[in-house]
């Protein structure tokens, strides 16, 4: 019976991805993409990856959704050449349809189908590798946490996670580089006039914070952890920015810098300290492993949240 759910979900996912690429209008594509994100989150659940599902849910309906909606607005406007000034709301102007000469389309389509068939055959024949479940489980008591995914992320493969926290910081810098730093100082969105809107934002702020903190702490023993919490906390910043409280531009520069770098920096300094005392990079002393992982996760979540807020605040200018 399970197979019914799975196949329906798979068909919906594929259909949505396909429609997303073929939608004649950009706005359709974007909204179909949101639905695709939801289906994907359900697929993660079906595959038993609750951590990934939380991350996907947070990203698809949180961060990426907002960025996409915002960009959609941007792309349906027309800017005069070489001027950063809005000319008119171009909702009447159709977005160019993607059209190709039929020979090109046919050749590319055939190539893709060939690639697809080969890849399906390859995937079909993947031998049973066994994975690393057994080793991961055996070392779990020494890792300081009870949830294997958190153990992998923050202990066994902490190096990857460290680089990943770095990647978010680099992404922020990259977005600054693309946009020009000067823009950053412009005023943000107009403050929300609607009292209900303001109230809603203010109600949701503590809810998001508390649930993020819960996920962060719960990551020790179950699905959750730094990244999921970070997206929720980042959503606070995004919400506040949407409501006109430009938190990230208001706080002093030094504070901003500390917020954005503290996750990466603390993780790194912890690693260096361990090396100085004779351990390996990212090796935790077993007695404090659980505590240190929690601290690292908290600081990483703060940094990522700040970076996501900054990305959003910067992009909506």
């Amino acid at each position, binding site marked *: 019976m399970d197979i019914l759910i799975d196949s329906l979900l798979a068909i919906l996912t594929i259909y949505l991805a396909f429609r997303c690429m073929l939608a004649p209008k950009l706005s359709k594509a974007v909204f179909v993409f949101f639905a695709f994100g939801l289906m994907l989150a359900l697929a993660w659940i079906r595959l038993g990856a609750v951590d990934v599902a939380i991350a996907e849910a947070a990203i698809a309906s949180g961060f990426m959704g907002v960025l996409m909606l915002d960009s959609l607005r941007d792309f*349906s406007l027309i800017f005069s050449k070489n001027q950063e000034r809005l000319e008119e709301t171009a909702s009447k102007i159709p977005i160019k349809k993607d059209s190709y000469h039929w020979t090109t389309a046919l050749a590319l389509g055939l190539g893709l189908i060939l690639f697809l068939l080969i890849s399906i055959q390859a995937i079909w024949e993947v031998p049973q590798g066994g994975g690393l479940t057994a080793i991961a489980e055996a070392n779990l008591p020494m890792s300081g946490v009870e949830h294997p995914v958190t153990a992998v992320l923050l202990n066994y493969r902490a190096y990857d996670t460290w680089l990943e926290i770095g990647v978010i910081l680099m992404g922020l810098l990259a977005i600054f580089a693309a946009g020009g730093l000067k823009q950053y100082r412009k005023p943000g969105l107009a403050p929300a006039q609607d009292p209900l809107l303001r109230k809603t934002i203010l109600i949701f702020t503590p809810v998001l914070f508390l649930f993020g903190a819960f996920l962060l702490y719960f990551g020790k023993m179950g699905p959750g952890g730094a990244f999921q919490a970070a997206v929720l906390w980042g959503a606070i910043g995004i919400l506040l920015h949407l409501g006109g409280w430009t938190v990230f531009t208001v706080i002093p520069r030094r504070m901003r810098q500390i917020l954005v770098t503290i996750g990466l920096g603390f993780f790194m300094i912890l690693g260096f300290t361990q090396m100085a005392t004779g351990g390996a990079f990212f090796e935790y002393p077993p007695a404090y492993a659980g505590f240190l992982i929690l601290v690292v996760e908290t600081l990483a979540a703060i940094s990522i949240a700040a970076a996501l807020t900054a990305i959003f605040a910067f992009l909506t200018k």
Partner: protein
Amino acid sequence: MMIKEIFIVILLVAGCFFFLAGTLGLLRFPDLFSRLHALTNADNLGLGFIAAGIALYIASPWATVKIFFIWILTLLSSATSSYLIARFQREQEKSKNGEEE
């Protein structure tokens, strides 16, 4: 046991019914405001029924609290969001920029 299961079944079926009603409303009603009305009401009710059914099925106090929390939050957010969408649409229609594309 059986009585409980019957209750769960009834609650879930009711939830499904309301979801279907909401979706049909979304599809069949002529303009955004009536769609908004149909969808938000029916969906919240449907989610409430399903939540109640599942809470009954799981029967753990912590989960019940969570599910209740989910439902309250949904009520809050969907009420707000339907209000916001409606107001947004009205403003858009007022300024004649409403028709997209």
